[in-house]
């Protein structure tokens, strides 16, 4: 049987897999404000990286540079072998390979759920409408809300909307999923349903970069945790190491404030 989210699952250990994302010496300024300072990060295929850090530390800005929603000034970003330059063609190719889920869902309010999901596959992947809608329905089934296909986003709860947003990103068959605080705008009782979907997705072998404040999710699902502060990576490592034996003082401070 096809794996749950149709991503090829790898049995090879992480260290031997190909690089999915390579970031070298990334610098970004907003005016005079230096928001990303010499960021280096490599993400392997199928790896789940959770990015933690205080607000304003540049973690959202960082993952938004990966699919060119934000520009950067110096450094190098390679996504799935494609170098991120100002070339529109490269940008569009990278966006086809990376799905993104936003804090505020950003569903298209004037389209039904089904249209929301099938729009990009039809116009970007050039799939037949019938095929795109069939896949949209399958994805809705997998995120647990097949009965909502013909409603409009405004008729759904926050948790349901965010699951639709995940399905919409997945419909493009991306190789990488970026999550920008996906549960921060949700009522507490809806956080779990979204995290469950993300967990299943991680187990199916998707390469994921997740900015979140959900420590439980980070500890349980992440292969690696990256800590941002003042625009730089101050510490990274497996969850056990970060949570139980943090090395850096700022990491300890951050964790003491959250946990």
């Amino acid at each position, binding site marked *: 049987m096809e794996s749950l989210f149709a991503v090829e699952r790898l049995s090879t250990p992480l260290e031997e897999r190909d690089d999915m994302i390579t970031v070298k010496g990334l610098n970004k300024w907003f005016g005079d404000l230096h928001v990303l300072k010499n960021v280096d990060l490599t993400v392997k295929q199928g790896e789940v990286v959770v990015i933690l850090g205080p607000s304003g530390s540049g973690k959202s800005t960082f993952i938004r540079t990966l*699919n*060119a*929603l934000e520009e950067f000034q110096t450094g190098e970003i390679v996504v799935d072998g494609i170098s991120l330059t100002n070339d529109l063609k490269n940008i*569009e190719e990278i*966006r*086809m390979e*990376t*799905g*993104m889920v*936003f804090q*505020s869902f*950003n*569903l*298209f*309010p*004037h389209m039904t759920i089904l249209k929301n999901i099938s*729009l*990009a596959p039809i*116009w*970007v992947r050039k799939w037949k409408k019938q095929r795109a809608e069939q896949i949209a329905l399958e994805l809705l089934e997998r995120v647990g809300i097949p009965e909502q296909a013909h409603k409009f986003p*405004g008729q759904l709860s926050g948790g349901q909307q965010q699951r639709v*947003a995940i399905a*919409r*990103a997945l419909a*493009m068959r991306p190789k990488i999923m*970026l999550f920008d605080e996906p549960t921060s705008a949700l009522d507490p009782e809806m956080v779990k349903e979204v995290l469950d979907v993300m967990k299943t997705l991680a187990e199916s072998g998707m390469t994921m970069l997740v900015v979140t404040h959900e420590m439980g999710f980070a500890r349980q699902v992440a292969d690696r945790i990256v800590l941002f502060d003042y625009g730089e990576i101050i510490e990274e490592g497996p969850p056990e190491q970060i949570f139980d034996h943090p090395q850096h003082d700022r990491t300890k401070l951050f964790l003491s404030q959250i946990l």
Partner: protein
Amino acid sequence: MEEISFETNKEPDILLPPKTQSRALRWLRENLFSSWFNALLTIASALVAGYILFHTIQFIFTADWSVISVNFRLLMIGQFPIEEVWRIWTAFGLMTVLLGLSWGLWKGSMAHVAVSILAIMVVMLVMPFIQMNTRLILGANIVLLFLTFFVGTKLPKIKVPVLLVWLLFIPVTIFILNGFGVFEPVSSNIWGGFLLTMLIASVSIVVSFPIGLLLALGRRSTLPVVKYFCVIYIEFIRGIPLITVLFIGQLMIPLFLGNGIEISNVMRAMIGMTLFSAAYLAENIRGGLQSIPRGQYEAAQSLGLSKAHMMSFVILPQALKAVIPACVGQFISIFKDTSLVAIVGLTDLLGMGQKLVANPEFLGKQMEVFLFVGFIYFIFCFLMAHVSRRLEVTLGVGER
């Protein structure tokens, strides 16, 4: 601490309002006679309203409307030669067919348009001064409207072709009026009356919309040349009165085109009105574009949609929906402003009215003529406003 108990299972005691007064009486008391001062105001305004209404109705029923019935054809189509009127009827028939089909295909707002036009045709049909053959043609059109309505309900597949023909309707109409390119064209200088008003208004509305859209998009462009061209154009046009634009159009357009090319007065007026209203529409549409949150752009981009796809599927549908009320307001204002072309020597509906009043034969008939002209403007403006409200309801403007 005191314990608070919640008795959720108990039905609250419902007190029914005392039934002492009927609803109408209560409404009167609450809205018109709630205090002695309000009662005084009510009585005073009732007296004034009654006085005005009485004299208006008295005028309508005692006035001599023969000036309208005698000149009805002039008011409707100006001096369009009578032996060529069949061209107008052909275009009118085409409109009836399209209207009937659209009524059958889309129902909803289209039904309101179709029924209103139908009502206008029926009213014209029963007017005592209408000639017999006009009645027959009108009757045939009414039958045609119903026939095509049923065709429309049975053939849902022809939506796209019908839309295409609608888009081509105005050029086709002008082509028909000019005799299909085969017969001798009727010079647009003798087009007049309501026909001219309709033509100028619909050309201006239909053509200025896409231009306004492009200007609005251009004003938000990141390319400085495009952006500043649009800004300068919009601000320049918005800075001068429409009459000035019309005068400039009359004098300057032939100058720009050089010798060789002749361009009729009507065409110049159309170009002037179109360019004028495009600037206003652009600002309306820009307002709509600005109301779309950044997240919508980002979501579309992150899915890999190209800029053209993003605009046409995600941004514009939402932005245009939000500005329907403002745009229809602009359309209504264009429709009424066509009356200004009388100043540059065209005889539209109002211009024809003025000519009639100036005719010694109809001395002292201003009231009748201008009331009639005003009434025609009112019907069509009200129709536009009504359809726009319907459209807002069907598209769910204001809901998210």
